[in-house]
Each structure stands twice: as structure tokens, then as C-alpha cells.
């Protein structure tokens, strides 16, 4: 039904080859390293939960409120990984020393190991030979139990979708809640679902992505977003399950993986049946100044977990256009989509799981801005015919004129419908003012409904002619993208160098800068990660 552009097939093939080539150094890097968060994720898959009660400032610190949970207590997974690292280093992974401790009877279970760490009595060694074999087997079994829960969640999702019914159509209507308080988020999310949302995303508190641990418990104290915690995931998923049953349609839940804890949050998402995750290979680097190496190692692991969990990822190309110009830098979006695609596939994700990002961010005062948007959106649609595509609403050029904003969002919705986008992030008229209000969300959904119902069928009449404005624009963006990819692939460090050069979102990030580099560890040949082993086994 959707209009497609006739892209030059040779150019498309060349673009994909170049992207794979540019991404290769990243893949090599990721395979050769682990990170503290990858190792913590292994422990989480093996079932270790909870926080060390003697850490944290309780309600004296920011991020903690009288009626909420302390969000600064250190999780046991952090305490254990840090202890292992202190005592024997992480270059073999955490599994060998920890399950060696268990197998050798030093502790009855993982939780006990953690408590010994807390008490300062844990002693780790890296086993060899049969000891290593035994530790590996035990670790594999423990992690397999976690993965079994992930698998069960995937099956449960499929069952619920089959039983209750799915979103009534594409695009899926995706809405954000962002109160900072999980107990305010829940009724707002339910209200949005009742008003037509197919997907609910809970935005995270500012600053969480720079925490090198995942807070615990039900939280009420976020700023401009709610902490991503396992308990918050569970509460919201349960609330959406209730409303899904009520509405006879499975309502999806989204959260954010990017940040210093990508691998762990990916695991928690798998364990709590989240359905989509924001997961971009570069977002943390560019927008949170997280170290590139750290990010590349973490993102690969996290994506392997998503692949297993049947989670759809959303990439973050839209963000570039909040700092860079949407016309001048349109080709960087295309380049990034191709890179995200190649890295995602390498991590085991399939086409239907690739919610590649792009956005309606062209200055609305530019003549023909709407048609330029259509050209860009159709380019993405035609380049990735089997990916759902995540279509982001205007943000940068939204102003406090909420009437104009509501109109612009309507045209964004129309562009989404005309170009067959898979996931429609619903724009808010108050974008430039506040995090969305209950009423903003409701009005926004009314906007979406009007546009899709009244004008959705217009795709039948939408036929950008070959050689016309839209076709020419799409072609020239693709050509610019290929030219840029050529320059990137030319460099031995590929993408890593391109990021250092400020290619994306006009932000420069050198490979050794940014936060979290000290959490990256080069692996030895004997290193063992049971999660990676099990995740890769399936793919082989």
C-alpha cells in the first residue's frame, strides 16, 4: 500500500557493504572486551538481586524522597563485580571466580556470596582445569535459568498477543509517561492506553544513564522521568497487562537501555517482559558523553539479550537532528541507520526488531519543509523495507505556541501515515514547555486518531513522481550518505574515528574520553561469559 521510492539498487548494496566495513572495528572491539556492566548482567541473569543495605544515603540525598525508595543503595551485583575485580581482575569474567566460590562450597548460593562480599569475607580465585570446567558448568546452568525466564516471557508475550489481540494497525501509537513517580506514571499510562496508545514508554530520570548501577525498587523521585528499576518495570508491565485485558489488545511497554548499564537493563527488560527498548549503538557516546569503547561493548551484549527476548529496539538517530540541522545533516541519519542495522544484525536481531530512528525535525518555516520530511521518511522506508522504523515527532522547532505545535504534530502524523512508518511517537503540544501532561497525551492521541482515520488512506493518492521533488531529494540524501560512508570505511578505525571527528549530531567524542572507560576490560583467551556462550549458541 505504501509509496516506495525506486532507489538505485547498486547504491543501496554499496551502502550496506560500506556500513558493514565501517562497523567491523567496533565488532572486533566488542568481542575482545568485557565491562563491569556486562559482568553484572551475567549475575543478574543468574538471579542475583537486591542492594547492600549499608550503602546509600537513604533520604538525605537527591534522587531519594521521603515516600520513595533510596535510589542510591549499591546493588549486590555491583558489590560482587567490584570485589572480583579488586581481588582477581575482570579479564576472565566474573563467572569463573564466582561459581568457583560456589562450587567449592565457600557459599551456598549467589546471594550468600554477595553477603560475604558485603561482610568483607568473600575471597575469589580464578579456577583452572577441572575447577574451571566445574565453575563453567555451574555458571552456565545458573544463567540458563535466567534465560529460560526470558524465553518464557517471550512466549508469554506471543500468547497474550494471540489471545488478547494486537495493536489494530500500523503505525503503532507510542506514548511517553514521565512524571518521575511510578505511582503517577501508572494511571497515566493506563489512561493513555485506554485513549488508544499501543506502546507506553517510561522515560528515565535525568542522570540515570550516568549511574554505573541500576537503582532498585519502586521509585517516586525522578526528575523529568522515572528511574528504570526492575520493580518499576514489573509494576508497569502488570498495570499494562491489566489494561490490555480490559481493552482486548496487548499494550506494549518500552524503556531505555542506553547508558552505563545497557547490558543489565537489557537483562531486566527480558526478565520483566518489556516489549521494546531504546537501544542505540552511539546514543550514550554522543548525548551522554559515555566512553565509546564502553558503549560498544555494552551495546553488543545488550542487543544479544534483546534478540533473545524478542524485544524490538529503537535507535536514536532522531537525536542528531535536535543538535544538527535536519536538512544539512539528513544523510548522517541514513548513515547511522545503516550502521545500527549492521551492528544489530551482528548481535542477532532480525529485521522486524529494528525500530530504526528518524524524525520530523526540519524547520517548519523552510519552504516545502513538509515535502522534505516526506522525502526523508520515504528514503528510510524504501531502504529498510522490513524494519518497523521509529518516527519521532517535532521537538527542536516546537515552541510555546501550543496551537502551532498541535498543528505541526498533525502534519507529523500525516507524514507517518503517508510513508508507512512502523512506530509513531506521539508528539506533544507542550514539547517546548513541560514534560507531557495527562491532557497533552490525551489531546495528542485525539490528533493521531483524527489524522489516521480521516487521512490515513491517502497513501492511495500519494504518488511522488520519479524525478519529482521528493524523488530527487531522497536520491541526493542517499548519495551523500554513501559518500560519507566511503570516508568512514576508509579509515582503519572506521566508525570509532568518525565519532571522534564529530560526524553525528555535530558532537566529537574521542575513543578514550567520556565516562565509564575504567569499566572496560580486555578479555583473556580463557575468559568465560556463560550468557554470551548461551546467547551465541542459539544463533549458531
Amino acid at each position, binding site marked *: 500500500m505504501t509509496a516506495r521510492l525506486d532507489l538505485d539498487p547498486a547504491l543501496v548494496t554499496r551502502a550496506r557493504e560500506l556500513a558493514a566495513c565501517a562497523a567491523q572495528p567496533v565488532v572486533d572491539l566488542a568481542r575482545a572486551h568485557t565491562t563491569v556492566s556486562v559482568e553484572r548482567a551475567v549475575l543478574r541473569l543468574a538471579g542475583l538481586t537486591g542492594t547492600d543495605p549499608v550503602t546509600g544515603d537513604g533520604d538525605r540525598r537527591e534522587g531519594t524522597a521521603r515516600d520513595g525508595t533510596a535510589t542510591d543503595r549499591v546493588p549486590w551485583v555491583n558489590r560482587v563485580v567490584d570485589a572480583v575485580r579488586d581481588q582477581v581482575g575482570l579479564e576472565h569474567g566474573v563467572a569463573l571466580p564466582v561459581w568457583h566460590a560456589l562450587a567449592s562450597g565457600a557459599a551456598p548460593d549467589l546471594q550468600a556470596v554477595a553477603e560475604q562480599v558485603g561482610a568483607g569475607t568473600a575471597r575469589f580465585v580464578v579456577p583452572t582445569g577441572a575447577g574451571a570446567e566445574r565453575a563453567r558448568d555451574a555458571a552456565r546452568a545458573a544463567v540458563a535459568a535466567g534465560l529460560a525466564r526470558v524465553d518464557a516471557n517471550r512466549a508469554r508475550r506471543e500468547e497474550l498477543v494471540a489471545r488478547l489481540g494486537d495493536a489494530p494497525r500500523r503505525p503503532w501509537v507510542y506514548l511517553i509517561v*514521565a*512524571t518521575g*513517580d511510578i505511582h*503517577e506514571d501508572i494511571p*497515566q499510562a493506563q489512561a493513555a492506553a485506554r485513549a488508544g496508545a499501543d506502546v507506553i514508554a517510561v522515560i528515565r530520570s535525568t542522570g540515570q544513564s550516568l549511574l554505573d548501577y541500576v537503582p532498585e525498587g519502586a521509585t517516586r523521585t525522578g526528575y523529568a522521568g522515572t528511574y528504570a528499576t526492575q520493580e518499576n518495570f514489573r509494576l508497569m508491565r502488570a498495570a499494562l497487562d491489566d489494561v490490555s485485558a480490559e481493552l482486548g489488545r496487548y499494550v506494549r511497554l518500552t524503556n531505555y537501555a542506553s547508558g552505563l548499564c545497557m547490558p543489565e537493563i537489557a537483562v531486566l527488560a527480558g526478565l520483566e517482559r518489556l516489549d521494546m527498548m531504546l537501544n542505540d549503538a552511539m546514543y550514550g557516546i554522543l548525548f551522554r558523553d559515555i566512553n565509546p569503547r564502553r558503549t560498544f561493548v555494552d551495546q553488543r551484549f545488550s542487543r544479544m539479550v534483546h534478540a533473545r527476548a524478542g524485544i524490538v529496539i529503537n535507535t536514536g538517530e532522531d537525536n542528531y537532528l535536535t543538535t544538527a540541522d535536519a536538512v544539512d545533516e539528513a544523510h548522517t541519519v541514513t548513515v547511522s541507520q545503516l550502521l545500527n542495522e549492521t551492528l544489530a544484525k551482528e548481535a542477532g536481531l532480525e529485521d522486524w526488531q529494528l525500530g530504526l530512528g528518524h524524525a520530523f525535525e526540519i524547520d517548519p518555516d523552510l519552504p516545502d519543509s513538509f515535502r522534505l520530511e516526506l522525502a526523508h521518511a520515504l528514503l528510510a522506508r524504501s531502504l529498510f523495507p522490513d524494519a518497523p522504523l521509529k518516527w519521532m515527532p517535532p521537538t527542536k522547532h516546537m*515552541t*510555546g*505556541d*501550543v496551537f502551532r505545535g498541535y498543528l505541526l504534530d498533525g502534519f507529523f502524523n500525516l507524514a507517518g501515515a503517508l510513508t508507512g512508518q512502523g512506530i509513531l511517537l506521539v508528539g506533544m503540544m*507542550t514539547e*517546548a*514547555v*513541560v*514534560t*507531557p*501532561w*495527562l*491532557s497533552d497525551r490525551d489531546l495528542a492521541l485525539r490528533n493521531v486518531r483524527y489524522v489516521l482515520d480521516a487521512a490515513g488512506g491517502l497513501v492511495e493518492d500519494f504518488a511522488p513522481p520519479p524525478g519529482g521533488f521528493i524523488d530527487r531529494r531522497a536520491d541526493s540524501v542517499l548519495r551523500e550518505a554513501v559518500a560519507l560512508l566511503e570516508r568512514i570505511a576508509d579509515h582503519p578505525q572506521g566508525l570509532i574515528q568518525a565519532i571522534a571527528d564529530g560526524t553525528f549530531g555535530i558532537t566529537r567524542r574521542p575513543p578514550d574520553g567520556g565516562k565509564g572507560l575504567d569499566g572496560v576490560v580486555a578479555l583473556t583467551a580463557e575468559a568465560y561469559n556463560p550468557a554470551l556462550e548461551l546467547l551465541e549458541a542459539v544463533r549458531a
Partner: protein
Amino acid sequence: MPDGIDVVRPYGDTTGDGMVQLSFTLPVPPGPRAEGAALQLAGKMGIAPAMVVHSHGIGGGGGGGAAFTFFVVYGPVRHLVDLAAVQVEERAYPLLSPGEVDGAIRAGLHRQLVVLGACIGTDAHTVGIDAILNIKGFAGEKGLEYHREMRVANLGAQVTVPELVARARAERADAVLVSQVVTQRDAHLRNTRELAAAFREAMGEARPLLVVGGPRFDPAMAAELGVDRVFGRGTTPGEVASYLVHALIGSRRPDTPAPEDP
């Protein structure tokens, strides 16, 4: 909202945050002085702290600068809404089915109930009164003409008050239903007061029940306007029929005697 909670505030994204959105124009050219003026007004309205999130000049371009500034303001209002003090024109009467309405008239009046309808003044918006009176009705409910036990005359638009009084007297109307849609310069309020005064003068206590309606009326204003009942936007014929039965037959209110029986 759990029952029992009587004091609430507007809800932006958290319980009790009091957030509202406001827009208006001031006859002041754009600039810091205009923004200050907007903040002053928002403050007087009880919004604190108010944020002027948008403003633009109106009427500028070409020769002179803009003489007006349009503002969008967001912020929390400090006022509390006391639900216990809310004056609701609750329906103090049951909503009857068409059959019940006819039954009540037959039983209580022993003759047809006579209803006159019109748009008065220069108002020519008949769709609203037609929605109440014509068979076709509104929102799936049939209009009053559908009732066997009612005799309905719809006089249409631009009827003068003296004409209406004369017709009401001639037809011995039990109820006169008047629609007013144009509200600029409070035309609807003026016309309604004129209507009430004319009927009072011409017929005194024996006047028919006076009912007015229109999208911009506040139902709480009946007494102030000198009529028996005011219906606002979205009124359905069934509500009106039920009210007529209630007021003219059911529990006749002391202050609004129905016309003498013939």
C-alpha cells in the same frame, strides 16, 4: 478520584500540581514590558510562578510595529477547588422515557401539553431548537414533536418577543422554549431578560413555563435571568421533556405556577 475528597486542584502531571494553560492578547507592543504585563495578569489570576512560554506581536509588519501581543502562559494556580461548594444544576427530576412522559401528561394533565418554540431577537440559528423540537431530534433521541401528548409549534427564527407573547396567550401555551445562540455583547442574556420581563408584564403569575437554551448559557443562571430553566450545550430532547413533566405536572414548584387549566 476517590470519593470523600472534596478539595482538588488542576492536574498537570502530578496530583495537586495545579497546572493550567492560559492564552490571551494584551493591547501592548511585544517586548519585556508586555511580558511583565502578562506575568502581572497571570499573577492576579492566581498563577504563581507563571511562565510566559510564548508571545508574538499581532498587527505588525509593513509600516508600524505590532500594537498587540499574544501570550501563552503555563503555571500552577494556587486556588483550591472545593467540590463540596460546587453549585450543580443537578437534574432534580428523573429522566423519563418518551412513553413515561406521555403517560405522565395523560395522567396528570388530562389534555395535551402545549409547547411553543422559537429563536427570538435577530438570532437565526434554528438548529438547536429544531434539535429539541423536531421529530428528527438529537443524539439519537426524538424531539418533542414525537410525543402524542404534546402539541408543539416551532415558530422558527427571528421571532419578536411581542409576537411570542401573543402566540403564547392565543395558544394557551404551557411552556415556551426559546433558543439563543448568538452571544456577542451578551445578546443572549439581554434577549432572555427581555423575554422574561415581557411575559411577566403581560401575564403575571399566569405566564407559561419559560425555558431557554443555547450552547453558551450557564444553567445556573435561570433565576438571575427571570426564567424557569436554562439548558446548555449538548442538551437532549429527553432531558427537556422530563423537565417539562416535572415542572408542569410532577412536583409543581410554588414559585412557577403553571397556567390555569382551561
